[in-house]
């Protein structure tokens, strides 16, 4: 067997050759090595705190990948993903506490129910062009937030729900390490699915709609149906991530699922790169690490005498997220994925830069 390496020009002879995820065997081998590292080295090398951060990165990355399918590939913006994340979390926790549904069915139910809820707010957009989906998801965000707080018989209101211990196939999921495996297996699966969705008929239809909806419809793509499909997939990802998150942190309240979380997701995909699956992972990593760094930094500031009581984390976070969104949009609209590509290609082309 010979390794396929990058040819020195474009020698493709059929459309099929355009399609593979990995153009060369180098990419395939390096991702295999990456997977081995991820599952057999990292959980044993890293401590509990690092695994905790990594788990959050993976959960947010799943949601961000979903949002990127909608925003980056279909060209529709959702401001409701924070609440959709919450719908998944609430569905899973209610199923687990009230009906004692096992772990796996609950988190999948979290995803499916979110896709259905998402469709309710997606229907208006199906009749309209432009950014009406944005407005209706904004309404969705605020209505759902209201429901989380005020429908007390279902969601326990502001006091929240405490989840029972999760078990999967008889194994207790208690430590960060055992959750690491569950979360990252789903992370890899969902990433793989997303990567494949965007190169099938559906993904190409999404991209066509993003680039020019009139031309897309002219080519025979029923745009409203595809927009809804994209929105359903995207809300499924958000809900699934939310359900995973709820089972991981084991207690939920309406507090995290605000408009701010929606903005955080948007920040993730902008920073990572619109229209790039790997980019969403970069973005989720960036934002989660930024979050951790900020809370550490502000925790440090709070301990200093001069600043006691003066700084709280939320406004700073909001300001910095806003700033990061704006700066990336103006200076690097393709995000970290583009930076990564530039770095990679400059290595590849060195020493001849063209």
């Amino acid at each position, binding site marked *: 067997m010979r390794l396929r390496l990058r040819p020195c020009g474009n020698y493709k002879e059929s459309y099929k050759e355009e399609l593979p995820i990995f153009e060369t065997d180098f990419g395939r081998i390096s991702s295999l090595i990456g997977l081995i590292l991820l599952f057999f080295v990292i959980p044993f090398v890293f401590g509990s705190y690092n695994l905790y951060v990594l788990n959050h990165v993976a959960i947010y990355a799943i949601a961000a990948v979903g949002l990127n399918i909608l*925003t980056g590939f279909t*060209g*529709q*913006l959702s*401001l409701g993903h924070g609440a959709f994340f919450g719908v998944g979390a609430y569905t899973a926790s209610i199923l687990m506490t009230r009906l004692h549904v096992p772990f796996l069915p609950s988190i999948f139910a979290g995803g499916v129910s979110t896709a259905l809820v998402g469709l309710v*707010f997606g*229907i*208006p*957009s199906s*009749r*309209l*062009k*432009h*950014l*009406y989906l*944005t*407005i*209706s998801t*904004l*309404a*969705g965000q*605020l*209505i759902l937030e*209201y429901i989380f707080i*005020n429908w007390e018989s279902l969601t326990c209101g502001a006091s929240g729900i405490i989840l029972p211990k999760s078990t999967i196939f008889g194994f207790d999921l208690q430590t960060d390490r055992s959750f690491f495996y569950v979360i990252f297996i789903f992370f890899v699966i969902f990433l793989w699915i997303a990567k494949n969705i965007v190169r099938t008929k559906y993904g190409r239809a999404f991209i066509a709609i993003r680039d020019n909806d*009139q031309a897309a*419809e*002219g080519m025979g793509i029923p745009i409203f149906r595809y927009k809804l499909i994209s929105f359903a997939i995207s809300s499924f990802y958000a809900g699934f991530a939310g359900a995973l998150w709820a089972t991981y942190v084991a207690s939920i309240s309406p507090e995290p699922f605000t*408009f*701010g979380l929606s*903005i955080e997701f*948007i*920040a993730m995909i*902008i920073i990572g790169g*619109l229209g790039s699956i790997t980019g969403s992972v970069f973005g989720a990593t960036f934002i989660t690490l930024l979050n951790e760094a900020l809370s550490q930094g502000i925790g440090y500031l709070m301990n200093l005498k001069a600043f006691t009581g003066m700084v*709280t984390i*939320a*406004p*700073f*976070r*909001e*300001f*910095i*997220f*806003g*700033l*990061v*969104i*704006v700066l990336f*949009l*103006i200076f690097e*609209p393709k995000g970290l994925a583009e930076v990564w590509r530039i770095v990679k290609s400059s290595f590849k082309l060195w020493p001849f830069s063209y």
Partner: protein
Amino acid sequence: MGFFLQLLVQGLSIGCLYGIAALGFVMIFKSSSVLNFAHGELLAIGAYIFFVITIWLNLPIYMAFIITFVGSFALGFLIERLFLRPMIGEALIEVVMLTVGLSAMFRGLLLVIFSGNTYVFSNFLPAWLNIRIGSLSISSVYTVTLIITIIFLAILGFFFKYSSQGIYMRSVADNQTAALSLGVNVRRVFALSWAIASIVCAISGIILGVINGVNVHAISRIGLKVFPVVILGGLESIGGAIIGGLFIGFLETFVSGYLSTSLRDVVAYVVLVIILMIKPYGLFGLVEIERV
């Protein structure tokens, strides 16, 4: 009956307020078709400038008004120049995401400076504006809101109908490329519409501050409420914005008066979703018929 009338009056004034708040939004949308998600923060910034000048610096009211107007004009101009102009030629969705980012940035900044406290203006309005008709009392703030709404409608109406800048704005809204080729300075139109919209926002922000006190969270929530208002009225219609505002104002006061106060904040969005489903271009919006 007295309760009903009281609610009616309150609804009318809150509605006018939403209407004014939405005017700035509609102006930006009309000239550049950008959904401005930083609208609530523009309202809040106007209110805070006014607050700082009157309460912290203790300057007289008329000075405060002048400085606030000049300040927010400059702010609108700067926002357009610094953030929106580099985005010319980018996809609309990216510009909208930029305003989402701006909104988070401004809100964070205001919260860092002023924290989440509510600051109260001293009521500077003269007492003769308090109107009493029988059992019905209308506080001066509401009278002023009504008067200002009417003045604004008149001014903006004349501006768009007769002044050359207003006509440029309408032409840009109608067809950017055509306006450009006929020699309209599209950039200046954008800058000017952001600046004017920002002044309009400042005025509504000040009124909001007088009614409820200045609080970043509260005002940015009202900024989001602009969306049901403009969707109801139609995104491009200034008169529609006022009528949409009145409708949402009445709806909210009656819901909180007769049903439940907590429903008040969410009922507008329920209406928004319903309107989007049944009459998506709003009551007075431009119906775009597009055959592919």
